[in-house]
């Protein structure tokens, strides 16, 4: 045994440390207690948040304000769970490819990623991701009452399910709606279109390219998430069915009528360049006051209401998708969800699930939306309870007339799980359709030829 004899150096060290603790102690404690208050709503869940303490996980997201808000809450997650969370931002065009490459090589680089709902069939067919029901039903991992998964929009959960099994937890989503200039419509005595026919007529009425106002615009640029995001709504509204007798059919009378409508509207009333536009271009044009109306995601409202850029604030109103000839309204079911990468250790999967549960919970949803301190709040919260929160409603109604009402109605009535063909071959089908649509929009092909060609190309893809 060695007796402890302090040298001069250790004595000095100890005293300095003690003095420092006395001096800064209260500040450290105050911070800790502030964090405790931050964590309180989470700690009411009857699970052990710290069961995967010390794990490190990487989450791939897209560069968007709704994920930036989540990223800013990372210290709270760390304090709650002790899990090291790293975010990697990948642009939307590449995130699908990157995650597929990660999943297929089974490297487990991304514990979870912001996933496209159309990809779950592919993921499930390859068993790349885990079923979430296992995690939801495990009482040690999930406090069902606290998390309340049923509060999350059923349409979005449905979109992220394959054969009734949930594979991705919705974090943020959107529905497509009609956005229009109420001042222009009022001047011509128009109302928001109830049918697609009215929509065309309204576009014709406000169309005045010489005064730099075009009637309407839809996404024209080719891409499974661009023009193939708008076309499926038209296709379904014109009575199209993706599957006829178990076979995927993309041509035929309904498809031709739907695509002809798309081409007609774009050729007659959209700016020339719109055939290469994606939604930000449309929203920009609209905020510059050069568009009468557009059909796109409700989340684009934050762009057309950006006080730095927009010239149309206060002149914007919203309505649901116009009805098609069948009387149906079909909106998009889009959400960024989080799946669990199957190529990970059990402990990492637990850590991933804790992250997902935290991100999708009502509390985090509120903290990234109306309770968020920064300037850009989210408009795509995943839960009905958040959408009923008076503060959230107040925030969103700042975007213009009827915004929350329209978005809620669209979410509850106009979503259609079979909006797009949900099969593992979707990436190929989506791309083929996008190319076909653009070739019709640009006049490279007639509507019929474009669709027949797409059908010819899709048939071999579906053969096993």
């Amino acid at each position: 045994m060695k007796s402890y004899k302090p040298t001069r150096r250790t004595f000095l060290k100890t005293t300095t440390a003690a003095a420092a603790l006395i001096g800064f102690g209260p500040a450290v404690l105050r911070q800790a207690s502030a964090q405790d208050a931050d964590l309180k709503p989470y700690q009411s869940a009857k699970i052990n948040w710290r069961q995967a303490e010390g794990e490190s996980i990487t989450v791939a997201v897209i560069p968007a304000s709704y994920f930036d808000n989540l990223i800013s809450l990372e210290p709270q997650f760390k304090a709650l769970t002790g899990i090291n969370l790293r975010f990697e931002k990948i642009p939307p065009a590449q995130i699908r490819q990157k995650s597929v490459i990660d999943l297929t090589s089974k490297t487990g680089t991304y514990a979870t990623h912001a996933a496209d709902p159309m990809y779950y069939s592919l993921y499930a067919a390859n068993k790349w991701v885990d079923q979430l029901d296992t995690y939801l039903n495990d009482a040690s991992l999930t406090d069902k009452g606290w998390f309340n998964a049923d509060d999350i929009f059923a349409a979005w959960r449905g979109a992220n399910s394959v054969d009734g099994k949930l594979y991705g937890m919705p974090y943020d989503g959107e529905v497509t709606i009609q956005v229009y200039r109420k001042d222009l419509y009022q001047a011509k005595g128009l109302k928001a279109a109830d049918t697609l026919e009215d929509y065309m007529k309204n576009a014709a009425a406000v169309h005045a390219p010489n005064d730099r106002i075009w009637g309407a615009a839809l996404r024209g640029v080719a891409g499974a998430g661009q023009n193939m995001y708008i076309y499926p709504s038209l296709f379904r509204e014109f009575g199209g069915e993706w599957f006829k007798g178990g076979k995927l059919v993309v041509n035929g009378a309904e498809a031709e009528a739907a695509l002809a409508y798309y081409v007609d509207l774009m050729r007659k009333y959209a700016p020339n360049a719109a055939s290469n536009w994606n939604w930000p271009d449309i929203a920009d044009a609209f905020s510059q006051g050069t568009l009468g109306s557009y059909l796109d995601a409700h989340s684009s409202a934050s762009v057309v209401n950006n006080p730095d850029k927009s010239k149309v604030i206060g002149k914007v109103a919203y309505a649901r998708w116009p009805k098609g000839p069948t009387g149906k309204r079909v909106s998009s079911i889009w959400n960024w969800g989080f799946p669990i990468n199957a190529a990970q250790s059990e402990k990492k999967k637990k850590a991933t699930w804790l992250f997902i549960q935290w991100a999708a919970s009502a509390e985090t949803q509120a903290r990234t939306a109306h309770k968020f301190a920064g300037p850009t709040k989210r408009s795509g919260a995943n839960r009905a309870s958040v959408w009923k929160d008076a503060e959230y409603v107040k925030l969103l109604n700042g975007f213009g007339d009827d915004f929350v009402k329209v978005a809620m109605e669209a979410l509850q009535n106009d979503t259609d799980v079979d909006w797009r063909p949900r099969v593992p071959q979707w990436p190929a089908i989506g791309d083929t359709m996008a190319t076909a649509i653009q070739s019709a929009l640009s006049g490279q092909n007639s509507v019929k030829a474009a669709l027949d060609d797409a059908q010819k190309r899709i048939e071999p893809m579906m053969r096993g």
Partner: protein
Amino acid sequence: MPSAGNSVAATPAGAATSDFGRVLAQRERRFATLLLAPAFLALLVTTTFPLLFLVYTSAYRIDLAMPFANGFVGFENYAVLLQDSRFWQSLVISMVYTISTVILQVVIGIALALFVMDMKRGQGWFRLIAILPVVLSPAVVGMIWRTFMLAPEFGIVDYLAINAGLGSKNWLGDPTLAMVSVVVIHTWQWTPFAFMVLLASLAALPDDIYEAARIDRASAWQRFRRITLPLLRPAIVMVIIMRTMVALTAFAAIFTVTGGGPGTATEILNLYAYRKSFTELSIGYGSALAVALLIVTIIISAILFAIRRSK
């Protein structure tokens, strides 16, 4: 490497030294091999192996969307490829793209080189400015053209077109104009390369022949036709070979400008292979397309090299 060994082995004087020389030569050879090995290995790992793996992959069906259907298919991918109208269409587009860009680059390159040769002043500046597009990344060039030059109403090209009375054109939205646009973009970026090479060989041409021609009262056109062109021939052929290979495998600029669109109007073979592999996730068939492109490139280069050697 053997030449280094031979030179040592060529010095022996007697039987004993010859033995010694052989050992020395052997050592030298071993040393040379050792020096060569890292580069050779790196080359093997980074080019030869992936290439062979590509050929190997092309004999399989690898469809991420239908993992249960994957397996060895032999030449089936190639059989499908020969029946695939989009393959032939993209091959034709590749050819049109390559031939038109190479011809434009050579013609404009020669014209510029002749023009600059006669410049008394500012040659250096001209060369410096001309080289700028070459140092840009094709993806950046694509973005610049897409947003800054060709955007309807706001782009410089469209502004000029409006002022010239042609009216605003949908440069990237119309199938024919989109093709013209990507050809122009490639030509814009790479003509300076042809120009620099041709200018250098032009400067190296002997003056006395021209003097003799002038004494014989040859016209400017005759001098160009009979003297300049034949003398420049090796340089021109070299430029054609290099530019053809690059144009056949072009990707980044078209990818960023049109993505192969509108529809499939500018979808070169390279883009089609990329789409098949990474968007549609049919890796086997995508590999077959890439191998087809490789074969086409090799055949065309072989023909060009043969032409080069023929005279």
